[in-house]
């Protein structure tokens, strides 16, 4: 067996993801020597690690290559999603510092776990082998299980952690089984090698087509759980409601980015030619993603209407948004459209990141120290007591609906465009109609803030760092909405990112 030399491993490319994992380990030890009342030091050290990874990522971004003998690929696709994830982690840390202190759950491990899950998502973005996808998936998930239960003696948080853990472990098993079937059918777990084997299987050499279809279906189920699309979404509202709010904010974006990154890479790099019958124009997984996307859009948006708690509402809203990204994934199944659709998915994820984190930050600002105060009624009168906060929340809600001049509009625009280009007209119509439905519950929050009178003082706890987080996400939402060419520009970073993925 020929073993690689150190230079062949190309460790330089892995610095962004690896530095974060390493820093998490070091921080775990450093944190032991930080006194209990000064745990915010850990937060800033963690934020420093995220900034370092961000800069390293920008340096690696335009210099694509393969590391660890093809297991890890650092291309623009991964680089772009790393930017999204690292921004998410940074904003989540900003949101957490004061929140943890005032709710009395401040522990240094929180930030360590946050860094670990972030590095897991970054490995997911770069994974070029089914085995690496699985390990990254676990590195992403396990810290999130713990974080969901971080408000531990409280029952709802414990329930969230346990529920997420049991169902998540189950979903991981689905993924592994799917990966094993694909390995059995193709004889390789490396994504670029699988694509050749798929061609041979289709040509009738061996009877592994059934194995391939079953395997890709199981992988779709396993990753579908992580991104919370409809048949696999049951855990979402309970976990999002029970977990501490900054954790909810982080996992509503981070876990989705990781899941979609792996899904897109597996489907487009390994299985683009997997068709049900030889000679079909579109990929065999298009119908499956189509149906799942349609179900997700309809159920997520309609059930969100009846929610009375902002965290549950945003949970169903996040299910619905996973449906919009999945629309783009389905569109990517048509060969000529796959680069446009991938671009749409990436833009959507970035727009969703800013808007959703912002919405959670505002929800957190009016949440009380004991975790109550997240009902929609608590937004009543916010327009009078805190006009600026209410106005910003209104923009986030409009952006989630997809009103022009906000990031959400740009995201939906490109996704619908790709869906129509791919010829999935019914899906596009479902997407537009459910967007209209979603306006109902998003606008209700705005109505509560400005047109209804409330009692007491809502925004009790908009502490400085949370305000920074809100302003940061607000700026992101508006800048993306007003100057969409930043990301939709053909020669921009997204195009590069897509070019790296779609052959």
């Amino acid at each position, binding site marked *: 067996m020929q073993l690689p030399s150190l230079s062949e491993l190309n460790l330089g490319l892995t610095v962004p993801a690896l530095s974060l994992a390493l820093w998490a380990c070091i921080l*775990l030890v450093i944190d032991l020597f930080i006194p209990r009342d000064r745990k915010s030091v850990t937060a800033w050290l963690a934020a420093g690690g995220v900034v370092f990874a961000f800069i390293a990522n920008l340096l690696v971004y335009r210099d694509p290559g393969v590391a660890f003998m093809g297991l890890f690929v650092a291309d623009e696709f991964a680089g772009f999603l790393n930017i999204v994830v690292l921004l998410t982690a940074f904003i989540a840390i900003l949101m957490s510092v004061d929140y943890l202190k005032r709710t009395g759950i401040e522990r240094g491990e929180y930030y360590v776990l946050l860094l670990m899950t972030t590095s897991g998502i970054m490995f997911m973005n770069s994974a070029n082998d089914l085995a690496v996808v699985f390990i990254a998936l676990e590195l992403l998930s396990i810290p999130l299980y713990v974080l969901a239960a971080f408000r531990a003696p409280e029952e709802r948080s414990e329930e969230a952690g346990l529920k997420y853990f049991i169902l998540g472990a189950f979903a991981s098993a689905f993924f592994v089984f799917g990966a094993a079937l694909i390995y059995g059918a193709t004889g390789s777990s490396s994504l670029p090698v699988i694509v050749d084997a798929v061609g041979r299987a289709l040509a009738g050499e061996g009877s592994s087509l059934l194995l391939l279809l079953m395997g890709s279906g199981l992988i779709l189920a396993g990753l579908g759980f992580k991104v919370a699309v409809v048949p696999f979404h049951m855990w979402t509202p309970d976990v999002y409601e029970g977990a501490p709010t900054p954790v909810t904010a982080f996992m509503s974006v981070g876990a989705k980015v990781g899941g979609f990154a792996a899904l897109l890479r597996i489907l487009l790099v390994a299985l683009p030619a997997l068709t049900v019958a030889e000679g079909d124009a579109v990929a065999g997984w298009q119908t499956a993603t189509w149906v799942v996307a349609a179900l997700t859009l309809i159920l997520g948006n309609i059930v969100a209407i009846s929610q009375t708690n902002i965290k549950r509402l945003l949970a169903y809203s996040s299910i619905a948004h996973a449906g919009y990204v999945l629309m783009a994934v389905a569109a990517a199944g048509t060969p000529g459209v796959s680069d446009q659709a991938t671009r749409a998915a990436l833009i959507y994820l970035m727009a969703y990141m800013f808007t959703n984190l912002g919405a959670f930050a505002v929800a957190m600002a009016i949440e009380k120290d004991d975790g109550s105060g997240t009902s929609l009624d608590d937004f009543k009168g916010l327009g009078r007591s805190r006009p600026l906060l209410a106005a910003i929340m209104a923009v986030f809600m409009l952006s989630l609906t997809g009103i022009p001049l906000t990031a959400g509009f740009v995201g939906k625009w490109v996704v619908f465009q790709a869906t129509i280009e791919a010829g999935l007209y019914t899906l596009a119509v479902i997407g537009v109609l459910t967007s209209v439905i979603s306006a109902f519950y998003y606008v209700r929050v705005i109505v509560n803030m400005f047109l209804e009178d409330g009692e007491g003082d809502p925004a009790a706890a908009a502490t400085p760092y949370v305000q920074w987080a809100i302003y940061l996400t607000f700026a992101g939402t508006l800048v993306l909405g007003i100057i969409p060419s930043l990301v939709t520009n053909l020669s921009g970073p997204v195009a590069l990112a897509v070019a790296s993925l779609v052959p």
Partner: protein
Amino acid sequence: MPTFDEFAPIGALLILSVVMVALITIISRLFGPYRPSLRKTAPYESGMKPIGPAVRRFPVRFYLIAVLFILFDIEVVFMLPWAVVFRQLGLFALIEMVIFIAILLVGYFYAWRKGALEWE
């Protein structure tokens, strides 16, 4: 189905194990004396007299010890095959193992400082 041919030994093993277990159970039941008593049919509990139901409170410390045991037990499981092929792998394997153990040591140090190893 040519693809499944490679799995034939596993399938044979599966069938064989089921048949063997069934055979042994049936034969011992047919030819051996069978005089059940309350003590004999009770679930085996390390040879002790079973006391009380299994669903009861255990000190959570046992759980912690169990987790730490698994952690360092698995470590040895990985080290054994590594030690067997160490000569062929050389320096590369040494570096890999040092990284692996360093990560474990971080966990060990953390558990130590947090007092997970103290019984009191």
